[in-house]
Every structure is written in C-alpha cells, then in structure tokens.
C-alpha cells in the first residue's frame, strides 16, 4: 500500500497570474470556487477560514505571501480530531504561461507522525483521561 505524503497538481488557466492570485487570496475569490463562506487575513501568520454547505469548516494559517507568485498556508488534517496539532502545508505557485497562468498546488505532510512522541503522548493522554475520570468517580462516591 502506498502512503502518499504529498499531493501535487498543475492546471493551466487562461487568465494572467494577477487574476488567479485574487481568486486564491481574497475572501470573494475563495468563496467563488473553494469554500462557501470565506474570510482571510492575508499576511504570514494571519488566519483564514472557509465553510461548506455540508457544515464542514476549515481554519487555515497563512504562511507565505509573495504576490503574485507563491501563496502558502497550513490547515488541519481532514478526519483527525479538532485538537490534533498536526497540519498539512498547502502551497500554490503561479507561473506566467503565455497569456495565462500555470498554477501548481502541492499539499504535503499527510504521512507526518512525530515518531515515538506520537504514541507516547497519545497513550499518555488516554491514561490521563481514565485516571482523571477515576478521580471524579472517587470524589462523587465520597460526596454521595
């Protein structure tokens, strides 16, 4: 079984980079093709968010803003719990191609796991919860 760490796609768009850039980096542009409601604070460290009709939401953190060539952000890994700190990195690169733009998107980090720390931290958390709940039960038993 292949375990993909990165996804890479290139698409040719018959519009100049400036127009593609606006579609990628403005709330109006993003909401027209990507998410439904979008908001973005376009600066490294800024936040962006999108919402879909399904109720799914994405919260992004802007990482690279080099108009009109590179736009990068990180976001939560789909399917992991909300509070899981692991994120994938998405980077759009825009190159002029004739009168249009060659747009490349690379999303990487799907196979990341912080080595043994993952197992240790996770199992530690699991044990932590069961002992905390045990303490709660003890407390309630005494109080009753």
């Amino acid at each position, binding site marked *: 079984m292949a*375990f993909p760490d990165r996804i890479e796609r290139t698409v040719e768009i018959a*519009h100049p980079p400036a127009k593609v850039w606006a579609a990628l980096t403005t709330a109006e542009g993003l909401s027209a*093709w990507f998410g439904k409601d979008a908001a973005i604070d376009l600066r490294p460290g800024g936040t962006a968010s999108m919402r879909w009709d399904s109720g799914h939401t994405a919260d992004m953190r802007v990482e690279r803003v080099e108009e009109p060539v590179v736009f990068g952000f990180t976001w939560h890994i789909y399917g992991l719990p909300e509070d899981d700190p692991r994120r994938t990195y998405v980077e759009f690169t825009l190159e002029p191609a004739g009168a249009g733009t060659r747009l490349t998107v690379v999303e990487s980090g799907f196979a990341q796991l912080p080595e043994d720390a993952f197992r240790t931290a*996770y199992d530690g958390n699991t044990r932590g919860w069961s002992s905390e709940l045990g303490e709660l039960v003890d407390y309630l038993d005494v109080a009753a």
Partner: protein
Amino acid sequence: MSRPDIEATAEQVFVALADPTRRAILAALASGGPATATDLAGRLPITRQAIAKHLALLAEAGLVTAEQGERRRVRYRLRSAPMQVAQQFLAALARDWDGSLDALKVHLERPEARQGDTK
C-alpha cells in the same frame, strides 16, 4: 515509528475494519467504553467465542488493549492511535484537489468572468 510501520499500521486497521463483526465490536467499545468479552456477547448477536477470537486480532493490530477489570476479568479498551494513522491515509484520498482546481478553472474561465463582475 518508521514509514514501513506506518503503512503496516494503516493496513492492519483497514483489515480489522473490513469485517462487520469487528466493526460492531469497535463501535460497541467506542460508544459504551471498556468491556469484557462476556459483556460484548450480551450486547451483540455473536457468540462469546467468536468475540474472543476477533478481540485477539484487534489486540494484535493495536486497536484494543486488554486490562485487568473487576474480579480479575479481562476488559478490552479501544485504542484509537492506529486509527489516526489510517485517517491520515484517508485524508490524502479525501482532499480532492482535482475537484477544487476544476472549480477554480471553471470559475475564472466562464465567459461572464472575462467581461468583468457578474454578481
């Protein structure tokens, strides 16, 4: 964990989930918390022997851990770490950049867009 271990872990999760009885056992542990094989046999339409066999496979895959319960009975607890590894594999499949980039291309190249704002 090295990369081959990650793949092996994900594969064990998918093998475990391919069986409806094992899915039912995992679902029962997820919703009801740790349980013994006897508890599970009372809640699922499966014999205790079959449940014990499936629990052994699930323990081998790291999806459940055995622990000492009351009166020295062995209880099984759901362990979700391997599922998170498998979820990362599923996340890559679910990301659907093909659909999103098609939508971007259609959005920018539709005839109205060339003539300016249509909203």
